[in-house]
């Protein structure tokens, strides 16, 4: 039985740890399917975490913090669009600029407002999102298997966890079953075809970037107003890049990107679980090595499998109409 509850707790933490990755990967799908590289997922996630924490603290309501994070992230996406879509700048450079700007900005603003470099005050329970216990959790707990799945794995997560997994079918549906999705995909493959069909290429890319901004805001808010109760320096810790890798590994497709996110989440959950555990014959694995596992996995997966992934054809290329 201990083995089963181990599995349950591992699955539970996989779902939680994967949450920001899923949001970020879905955000990335929108930007990149429209032909705009989004390396700035990392920076935007960090900014969202900061703004959500600050907003929640000042207004005493985490929803206000989330809303502010959405506004700020959409603005950052628009900034990325202004540089790389309207002014045809290099998309990677624009993203790197945003990432660097935000690392400095969050630290500096935290220092100016709260007197502590890169830390925001701890939020009270009223000011943050709490775990949601699903109905009948206690009643169902005693039923074998179902009880385990329902009460120990599915119940007791933050709202963002549920939203993240809900976002995957929605993103899939928008991208593949609506005319908007068709246009987004077309603009990332052959913008000239979209232009000659009488659709504004630039407007399409901006719309896709706006959705990107909304989704990435959820990832940041999850970090600072749900799993943690404050913002701290560089708290996104490479998750934006990891999500980007998951998205590429998932071939810019919501379903496979989700699987990649869960895989990364699982290795992370596993490394936490394995810390300090004595394994038979091997002994204790050094913490540093275990912590490196998700990143090593990223490199291995990208190097080994991504060769077959085909990026949207027009990705990274600003659309130039006249010669």
């Amino acid at each position, binding site marked *: 039985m201990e083995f089963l509850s181990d599995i349950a707790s591992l699955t539970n933490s996989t779902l939680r740890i994967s949450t920001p990755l899923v949001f970020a990967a879905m955000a990335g799908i929108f930007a990149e399917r429209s032909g705009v590289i989004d390396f700035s997922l990392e920076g935007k996630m960090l900014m969202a975490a900061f703004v959500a924490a600050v907003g929640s603290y000042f207004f005493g309501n985490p929803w206000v913090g989330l809303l502010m994070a959405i506004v700020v992230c959409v603005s950052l996406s628009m900034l990325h669009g202004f540089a790389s879509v309207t002014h045809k700048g290099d998309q990677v450079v624009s993203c790197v600029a945003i990432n660097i700007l935000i690392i400095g900005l969050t630290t500096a603003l935290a220092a100016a407002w709260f007197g502590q470099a890169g830390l925001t005050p701890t939020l009270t329970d009223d000011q943050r999102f709490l775990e949601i216990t699903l109905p009948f959790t206690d009643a169902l707990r005693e039923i074998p298997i179902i009880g385990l799945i329902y009460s120990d794995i599915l119940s007791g997560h933050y709202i963002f966890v549920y939203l993240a997994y809900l976002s995957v079918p929605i993103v899939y549906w928008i991208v593949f079953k609506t005319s908007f999705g068709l246009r987004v995909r077309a603009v990332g493959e*052959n913008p000239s*075809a979209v232009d000659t069909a009488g*659709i504004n290429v630039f407007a399409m890319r901006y719309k896709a970037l706006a959705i990107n901004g909304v989704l990435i805001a959820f990832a940041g808010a999850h970090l600072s107003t749900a799993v943690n109760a404050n913002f701290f320096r560089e708290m996104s810790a490479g998750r934006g890049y990891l999500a980007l890798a998951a998205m590429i590994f998932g071939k810019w497709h919501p379903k496979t990107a989700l699987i990649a996110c869960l895989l990364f989440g699982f290795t992370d959950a596993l490394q936490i679980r394995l810390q300090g555990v004595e394994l038979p014959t091997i002994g204790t694995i050094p913490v540093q090595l275990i912590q490196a596992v998700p990143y090593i996995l990223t490199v291995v997966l990208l190097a080994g499998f991504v060769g077959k992934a085909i990026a949207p054809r027009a990705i990274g290329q600003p659309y130039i109409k006249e010669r």
Partner: protein
Amino acid sequence: MVSPILQLHNINKSFGHVQANKNINLTINKGTIHGIIGENGAGKSTLMSIVYGLYQADSGTIKVNEKEIKLKSPKDSIEHGIGMVHQHFMLVENFTVLENIVLGFEGEVIFGKKLEKAKTDLNNLCKTYSLNVDLNSIISDLSVGFRQRVEILKSLYRGAEVFILDEPTGVLTPQEVDELFKILRSLKEEGKTIVLITHKLNEIMDLTSEVSVMRQGEVVGHTKTDHTNREKLAEMMVGRSVLLRINKSKTQRGDVAFKVENLTVKDDLDVTRVKNVSLEIHAGEILGLAGVTGNGQTELLEALSGIRKVESGEIFLNGKKISDSVEHLNPRELKEKGLAHIPEDRQRMGLVNDFKAYENLIFGYHDQEPYSKSSIMKEHKILDYSKKLMEEYDVRPRSPHLMTSNFSGGNQQKLILSRELNESPKILLVGQPTRGVDIGAIEFIHQRLIDMRDKGAAILLVSVELEEVLSLSDRIVVMFDGKIVGERINKDVSDRELGLLMAGVA
């Protein structure tokens, strides 16, 4: 009763300092096939992009059905019944035919009823015009001819009355061209108007009832097609009389100078593109290699010129083995043995666009005396040499310091030609020598190739322009799907027969 469907008045358009269209006046009558002919860079495509709303004219007015309209984007022109089939197809390659056609005209937010209706409508259109397109195919699985039909179907579905086709036959086999012309005639019978942009005189004579000629951004003539002929049109296009038939003496065929045995070559994606090809080229002959783009010609040329690794098979130069799967001579060593290569893609492989003309002219000789001594380049010597070459090959403008990208396609090609031919190579590999080159320069380039042949060079001419292969070659081989599918002596072959070979059906 003839009524104008499309009228252009005093259209002007400049790109920077270049005036692409100058005071264009043009009237297209309803229900006609109207040809617009002109050399590359004459401003035909720019004009049509203005009519389609892709570019905005600097000044001038456009009338559709005698009503003045404003075109801000293709959306406006589509609303006024103008459709365009671009030279480079505007299709999303990994979408289905259906997805490509409804793009922008979905009529609903969530796919459902309208999409079903679109399918029915499109299938009906396909029947009416015998287009024979499967709506569920992915574009990348379709041949070029079918992709073009998808473009026509797309315009039809969007309610076009005027169809503009920009160089529609450039990438088609002769049979596909016949099919296309049939479709265009049936469109005309249904009362549609067709504007055919081309630089090919035959097409104008075959298909159109009226023709306008453009030169250097201006319309220089209008006429009924019945009242003109190929020679007159060519003269109007170029502004001087042009020799359309090349003067070619009988060949003085020598020994085998270049031989390829059972050659197999793979491309960068590890796909076998050249399959067991054997060829012989004699001194003093031009061997034409015909075929539709993408049937392995590119990889064959690259392997022969030492750029690409040979998978299996052998290559011999004057009876000596130069390359096999184990080792091959690099382009430099081949050059020393008297082999010159005029690559298919001059922008990418023939020239460095951001270099000055003289720098490109000296490439390959830049470290040899007298142009260089102890690794230091001798600028006067190089400039003198460049001036001499540019004079001899009539490169215009004759300024060695001009950036290569500022020369026209024809003059860029002359730069390459002068560099490669100056050393009188024994073997000459030529890929698409006149792609994107104007008629005047074509004449010049063809004459130079014939001169080389008469001097005893063995020439392999790879071209997708059947007319070019027919007018220059002594012997013709046809390549399809990586294999040589036929060999003919030029005298006794028709373009029809070659077309069937090129399509892989004979």
